[in-house]
């Protein structure tokens, strides 16, 4: 049960965090000037966007869940299972960012899911 909660938090909070940061960066706009001062201004602008803080909080939750999982599970089991974040990321991109995912990408994500299922079965 604890295993399932931690994996859900790693995948959902980690991916949710990345999606929130991605949304925040879209609010900030495309970076065209890469001089240090311009980058610092972009970071300051991003820090005023609420989505960034939501993203950072969720990513921190995902990281601490990873630490929790690694405290009693094997690293060669935990890390491959986190590949499910590709699937969660695609679903989030469709529903949260309104992106379209190609059939070939869904096929790849299906393979990732099959692989993670085998990793799970290999742990029994």
């Amino acid at each position, binding site marked *: 049960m604890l295993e399932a909660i931690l994996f859900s938090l790693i995948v959902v909070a980690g991916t949710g965090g990345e999606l929130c940061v991605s949304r925040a960066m879209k609010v900030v706009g495309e970076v065209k000037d890469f001089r240090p001062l311009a980058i610092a201004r972009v970071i300051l602008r991003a820090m005023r966007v609420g989505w960034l803080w939501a993203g950072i909080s969720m990513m921190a939750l995902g990281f601490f869940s990873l630490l929790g999982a690694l405290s009693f599970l094997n690293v060669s089991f935990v890390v491959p299972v986190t590949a499910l974040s*590709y699937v969660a990321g695609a679903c989030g991109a469709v529903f949260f960012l309104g992106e*379209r995912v190609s059939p070939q990408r869904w096929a790849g994500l299906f393979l990732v899911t099959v692989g993670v299922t*085998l990793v799970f079965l290999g742990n029994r």
Partner: protein
Amino acid sequence: MFDRRQQMTSQKPLHLKTFLLILVMVIAGPLGNAFLGKGMKHAGKLVIWPPSDALHTGLRVFGTGSIWLGVASLLTFFLANLLVLTWADYSFVLPASSMGYGVVALLGYFMLGEPVSPLRWLGIAIICLGVFVVGQTSPRSPQRSQRSLESS
């Protein structure tokens, strides 16, 4: 003409730079996770309630050298990832870095002495294949590509 010649001469160091940074990613990412795993196994039981115990747990976890080695390795991975994405295609970096799943299993087996069953190896190979297929797709969705074409 000059541009093409310049591109041809600058292509080789670019390939080497890409290869080196992907090598850093494939080693530093899994190594970071392996160090975190090692550190967390030594940190003992994690008690997060009441808050005073959570503080003690936090101090114990972040007082472990392996945890900091893990964090440093993961930061190296993120830095290499950010740098390589400034010139290399995401669709190239993603499948190339998926080899990290195999490396983490190797590190778990050889460095931490974890048992890795044949079924887990097969699962990891299929995950790598899946990430490779994802990497072959366009990094931009058809809708967005169309819009960017219309705007240009």
